[in-house]
């Protein structure tokens, strides 16, 4: 290959090009360089009472009142991981409460990736009839290895983690920070993530399922002065770059309160799952959601009872779910009973058509429900799916007619 042609010295000097562009753009909102950003500052007031582990890492222990049973059933909160635990269908999975570690991180953002880090952690565990919480605070980047290893130490190696959305956020982030700092990531431990169950139980009732919302609406606690979670990254950055203490004290208490709420919520939800039918009439609970959780756990009798109750009260989704469930397991009588609650939505109409086709073999009636399903926007969007159903029903109806003719 011919050697590259000799080129003129080019591109000036990148440094000078950069500085010229920089000069051109400054004045346009560039922030003044933080003075003495690199110097250790005197510990700010919001760290009063904290133990200084090194220049950049602080720790404190606080306590909350809390009433937890000694053992609770972890099965509802394990999600798919429950399948990995050896047990009979529907049986509980006992977890000693003293092995629980309630865990929450405050981070520099939600977007994830290697540029997002945690700067505050709370780890709670049952102790002497209450909840002990260790908090670890990172005051600047160079302290991160100690910060992370302090967290890992507090979590311990064989504990059961309890988090709110920790499966997809806190734990992956902690693992990433371990990798970034050359530390061994924590092993996959038993992990109870309350988010998914909480969504099913409360979201439709309270219009959301954030921890703060449930604390107020479900647990009836009033946290008092607090900061919204979305402001927390900016508060830490402001402290970091300009030394602003601002509402950092509230960030600290927010984080500690979150694990206390997490523990209280677990106790509350565990009680619901321990005797679901006793809670069925709590106004603030989505019975159908609870029923679905139970069905998924293999607790069919309780689950179906709750779903049927919801269906009778006009919850069409619950009726559809049950009808499909009964259909799958060939419980024709149960399925027939639920038909009247299917409602006037698209899925309800289709479900009726299915029932009439497969259980009653009444193709003409089934066709009329498919035609009704075609009305409305959803029907138009899913026309193709309806078309094949219609074709099949027409074919079956023709055969049935022919058979009737022969008989």
């Amino acid at each position, binding site marked *: *290959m011919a050697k*590259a*042609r*000799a*080129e*003129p*010295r*080019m*591109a*000036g*000097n*990148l*440094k*000078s*090009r*950069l*500085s*010229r*562009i*920089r000069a*051109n753009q*400054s004045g346009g909102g*560039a*922030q003044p*360089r933080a003075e003495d*950003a*690199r110097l250790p500052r005197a510990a700010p007031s919001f760290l009063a009472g904290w133990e200084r582990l090194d220049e950049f890492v602080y720790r404190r222990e606080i306590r909350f009142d809390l009433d937890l049973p000694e053992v609770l059933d972890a099965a509802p909160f394990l999600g798919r991981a429950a399948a990995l635990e050896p047990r009979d269908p529907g049986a509980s999975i006992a977890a000693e409460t003293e092995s629980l570690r309630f865990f929450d991180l405050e981070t*520099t*953002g939600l*977007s*994830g*990736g*290697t*540029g997002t880090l945690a700067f505050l952690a709370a780890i709670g565990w049952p102790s002497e009839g209450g909840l002990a919480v260790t908090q670890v605070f990172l005051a*600047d*980047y*160079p302290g991160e290895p100690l910060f992370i290893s302090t967290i890992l130490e507090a979590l311990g190696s064989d504990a059961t983690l309890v988090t709110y959305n920790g499966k997809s956020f806190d734990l*992956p982030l902690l*693992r*990433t920070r371990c*990798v*970034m700092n050359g530390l061994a990531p924590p092993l996959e431990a038993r992990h109870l993530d309350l988010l998914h169950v909480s969504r099913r139980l409360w979201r439709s009732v309270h219009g959301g399922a954030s921890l703060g919302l449930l604390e107020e609406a479900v647990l009836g606690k009033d946290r008092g002065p607090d900061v919204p979670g979305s402001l927390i*990254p*900016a508060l830490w*950055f402001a402290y*970091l*770059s300009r030394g602003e203490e601002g509402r950092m004290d509230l960030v600290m208490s927010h984080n500690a309160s979150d694990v206390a709420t997490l523990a209280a919520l677990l106790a509350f939800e565990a009680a619901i799952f321990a005797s679901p039918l006793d809670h069925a009439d709590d106004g603030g609970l989505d019975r159908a959601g609870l029923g679905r959780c139970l069905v998924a756990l293999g607790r069919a009798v309780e689950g179906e009872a709750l779903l049927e109750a919801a269906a009778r009260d006009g919850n069409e989704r619950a009726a559809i779910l049950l009808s499909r469930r009964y259909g799958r397991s060939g419980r024709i009588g149960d399925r027939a009973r639920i038909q009247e609650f299917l409602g006037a939505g698209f899925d309800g109409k289709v479900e009726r058509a299915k029932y009439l086709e497969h259980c009653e073999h009444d193709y003409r009636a089934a066709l009329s429900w498919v035609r009704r399903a075609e009305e409305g926007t959803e029907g138009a969007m899913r026309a193709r799916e309806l078309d094949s159903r219609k074709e099949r029903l027409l074919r079956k109806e023709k055969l049935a007619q022919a058979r009737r003719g022969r008989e």
Partner: protein
Amino acid sequence: MTDPSATRIIDGILSRPDIAPHVAHIETMPAADAVWAPLPDDLDPRLLAALASKGYDGLYSHQRKAYDTVRSGRNAVVVTPTASGKTLCYNLPVVQTLLEDPKARALYLFPTKALSQDQQSELNEVALGGSLPLQVYTYDGDTPDSLRVAAREGGRIVISNPDMIHAGVLPNHAKWIRFFSGLRYVVIDEMHAYRGVFGSHVADVIRRLKRVAAFYGAKPVFILSSATIGNPAELASALVEEEVSAITENGAPRGERRVVFYNPPLVDPVQGIRKSSATESERLALALLREGVKTILFARSRLKVELIASYISESLANLYTDNSRIKVSPYRSGLLPSERRAIEKGLREGEIQGVVSTNALELGIDIGGLDAAVVAGFPGSFASFWQQAGRAGRRGGLSVAFLVASSSPLDQYIIAHPEYFFGRSPEQARIDPDNPYIYTDHVKCAAFELPFKEGEAFGKARTGDEAENTAEALGFLEEEGIVRRTGGRWFWSADSYPSASISLRSATADNIVIVDRTGGGSRVIGEMDRPSAKELIFDDAVYIHLGRQYIVKKLDLENKTCFVEEKEVDFWTDAVTKTDLEVLTEDASGILRPGPGPAALRWVLGDVLVRTQVEKYKKLRFHTHENVGYGEVNVPSEEMQTRYLALVFDEASGGGRALGHLDEMLKAGVLAGAGRILHEMAPAFLMCDSHDLGISERVRDPHFEVPTLYLFDRYPGGTGLAEGLSSILSSVLSAGLERLGACPCEGGCPSCIGVDFAPEGTAVQGAESREMTKEIKDLVSSFLASLAGGPDGEGPGGAQDGGQP
């Protein structure tokens, strides 16, 4: 052996009275036998078995050479034509290494998504056909979440594209520990696609990739493959910033091929207007299809593809009343993947005889061999042309490729210079990863990925001290408050995900969205970058989209929206812009000396501030281009810093003397005419589109104080085009001169210097204006001769004094 009946058919078509007179050149490229090399001795028995089951008992020489180079730990770039077995060049060493070392991993990068899916099916064949225990995953925007974890954890070969590496993989590298720790090879296919803005970005993505790999203790070997370009080794080492050996001898056999240059007949010799390349291509394709020749036609836009395909089908329908014997399909982006797959299959299996395609089929998608390719208009680069032409050609058979020229100066130059076309590919692909904007963007992303250590350098500096460059960019980011310098390191310090807002492909991040408000609706029909929007979609402008006309009701720059309404009008609008240049630096300069005697010109390279102001617009009637009025435009001026190459015509230089005796108006005309032709010829030597370059002429330049012609990069900060131009300047000048000499027009036409030289606001009109253009054509000719060494002078490669900083 060549099939005599195929030769007879092609000869028959080429000698038809309506075709023969317009054939400008036929180049016959003889068949060649394979150059074989034995399989390497160290191949794993499982791999040997897999190869044997595919019928391989030896390799082509270039495949063996690639294997030996790569396995000895050296980077390689394989430069071979379509269908020469290039995938085995990288699959063989990669698969062998992966079989030897269960921890080893490889990353395959393709410029587009469609290609990576094709690649996976082929690889699965390599891996599964011989039941090799290697997991291959495609990881791109379409990969479902359920497969992503498996790809990260278990993928021995991961197939992706640069955009996904940039925005998905690198910012989450901690989830890819196993992959990065074992990363032994990075395969970069279709390397020639990485040029200009995209290539410059990708070079910086590779810097980040190497930096992250090093964090996990890996130092991958790079295997690149490229279509034929002028500087493959140079581009490869610019991309990966390491030494790369080029493998250019093709050992694959090939059948006889003819390349036919076809110049559509002149319709109006005075104005230099020719029949359209699209309709002439359609005619040729029809002639071929009717003789049973499987044909692919390449057109430049989606719309043309649809039109030509339907015209061809109509004509065929008239011929064959049963209409099912010859099937022609359009193929373009925007089709559903299943539709594309059906066409590809139809072509391979012979159900479809003809296809009309955009360059979507140019990249290595397997459609089997065709007999003829018709390329409507030079596709912008030689690499593209050869890839398109390469679609025709089967081992042992005759194939033919037509280049149907358009009226553009570049097409007309090429068709008159087959020797230049069939000689060594002269195109240089250029990138500039040190474009300060692109560089800073990627320093930002890199800081997000891993903190920078004090004194750490990002990439190898082309100029200056690399660690100082990096520190300067980091200082800039610190001022913006997004990195924090503390404890001897620079940490990412913001609540954002930088790569999400940095596109590797588009010029600027802030695009204007074009919204169709016809009939009270609100439908997004397109996007346009801000600088172009100011010149194209100002209030009352006519905007043409997919053949429909719209009138711009409101360009709202603040909200990045432009509202349009559909309306039929018989004119289009053309912005009149004023460009101000302010030279910021002179970084390098040189003297162009075509022969003994005085210098022709001085060139200077540097940074420039370009300020563009749209002043008003002209309304021009369709077809006649008659000016039917003006309108006001009120948009703020656009400013950017970029790289320029100035051609400075000092008084004593050849160029200066050629201009010296002319009056101001003629001087301006000559500079404009020469500028236009140079601007149009540049893409013959530099891989870019002519609209990537701006041009501006100054009769008396305020900076250099003499007549000066500026060529500047249209991308802020530059992408290496100005530097590239300086090294090929004499070739461009000679080509411009030759084009002008060969142009049959009487006095200026769109195929040479253009037609409109009457200065704004003067009374020069009609016949007088045509006289003036004629004079200018002659003057440009002698002006270029003074620069390039005369029509019979030294031609390309005139002496060039080296640059001095």
